[in-house]
């Protein structure tokens, strides 16, 4: 059974069609990359999977049920992690936020939750920074903290929206290596512009621009002419067009 099943999904916003007749299956331990132009509906698709936007046309099932029922099984890492950097909050507290909504709120966090948060920080290699103020970290470090926050809730699926948008090359590599490690037991869905990086890590690529086109990276790789082991984004899009 697919853990995410999207059937004939369409979505309108202010009478404008954002998504049209989208079909997609995500299997366990997939590493799915979602690419496409800005305004093409990538973020909308994520919000529908996360149950933020209501579904009117078509259906989405996560773990065989409506998305709202399985929010706790999906970890989410938002796009912009550079907001609110003045906020007086420690790294550990940000990670602990992964636990909110699990039980009724009573006077802060328990010992077990703190241990779990420290464990999640260790997983992303940030345990040394547990007591640092979040604003003191670099963009890449902050992104890893956000991944730890999502891991804190022990998700089966991890969804990341442009995780490397404003991060230096070194930081990007660290994040993708981390995602690769996590992928051994977690399904990963990444929205990204960075196609050449995605090609190296993802096993499925979908191109979303109102409609969704599905690509298997294995077949795709065969269609590419590997010169110098690198291809630019323009070449990539050409290949996608041919595959369509």
């Amino acid at each position, binding site marked *: 059974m697919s853990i995410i099943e999207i059937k004939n999904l369409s979505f309108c916003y202010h009478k404008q069609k954002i998504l049209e007749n989208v079909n997609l299956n995500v299997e366990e331990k997939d590493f799915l990359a979602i690419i496409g132009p800005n305004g093409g509906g990538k973020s909308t698709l994520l919000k529908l999977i996360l149950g*933020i936007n209501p579904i009117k046309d078509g259906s989405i099932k996560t773990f065989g049920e409506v998305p709202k029922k399985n*929010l706790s099984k999906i970890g989410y890492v*938002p796009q912009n992690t550079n907001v609110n950097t003045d906020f*007086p909050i420690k790294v550990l507290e940000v990670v602990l*936020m*992964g636990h*909110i*909504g699990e039980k009724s709120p009573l*006077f802060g*966090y328990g010992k077990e939750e703190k241990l779990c948060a420290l464990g999640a920080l260790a997983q992303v290699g940030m345990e040394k920074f547990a007591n640092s103020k979040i604003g003191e970290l670099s963009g890449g470090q902050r992104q890893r903290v956000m991944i730890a926050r999502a891991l804190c809730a022990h998700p089966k699926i991890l969804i990341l929206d442009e995780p490397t948008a404003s991060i230096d090359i070194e930081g990007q590599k660290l994040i993708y290596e981390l995602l690769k490690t996590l992928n051994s037991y977690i399904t990963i869905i990444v929205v990204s512009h960075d196609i050449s990086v995605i090609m190296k890590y993802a096993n499925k690529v979908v191109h979303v621009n109102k409609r969704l086109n599905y690509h298997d990276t294995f077949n795709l790789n065969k269609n590419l002419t590997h010169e110098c082991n690198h291809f630019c984004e323009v070449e990539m899009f050409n290949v996608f067009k041919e595959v369509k």
Partner: protein
Amino acid sequence: MENILEALSFPFIQNALIAGLLVSMASGIIGSLIVVNRMVFLAGGIAHTAYGGIGVAVFLGLPIFLGASIFAVLAALIISLITLKHRERMDTFIGLMWAVGMAVGVVLIDLTPGYNADFMSYLFGSILAVSQNDIYFMAGLLATIVFIITFWYRDILAVSYDSEYANLRGINVRFFYTLILILSALTVVVAIKVVGLILVIALLTIPVYIAEKLSNTLYTMMILSGLFSSIFTLIGLWFSYEYDIASGASIILISALSLFLFLAFNKIK
């Protein structure tokens, strides 16, 4: 020194000190939430709308605190509603409430026959006229604030830091946003007594700004803000007594001077 001891023997000075400390703690805690949630302008709107409530209370012969509280809480609820429907036009609506609230207050006080109490005291504070009942109200509010913040600390922290994520985790962001606004409204009402509605913004932001720079958790920021606010209030009151100047303005100037010294010291360091 003798001067201070003599002053402390007057009941109205004792009341002023107690009120000053209670309001400082409340405004330190709530001011921290207002600042991290970027709600300073909202708090200003609520404070000035509350003046309408003061006018209504004077006109109908009701307790002033009651009128101001009802108007302030109503303003908080309206702001919460606007945030939901017309977030992008927020500043226009708040500006509107700000002015209309003031106008209602001025007109109703004018219309009240024989009412010639010094209504400047609501604009600039009247801490020396704090009554025993005022103090009970302030203490009750502070206790409520401390309880609510301790009880819901993790949710309030999550909503303030990253409301999108909190929403995703099933937290009722609107409930907490409204709760913060209502607590702000009530804090503004008691702070009006101490520094007046025009200066209330300074009390909610200056000590908080210094505290923010020195804290790495919201919790420490709240405690430090309350502490700084208390110190500024005490020193301000002393100046006010010693040199016979308005207490509200004196407190704010001491706060601003401290902020200036803090910034200068940080620069040199």
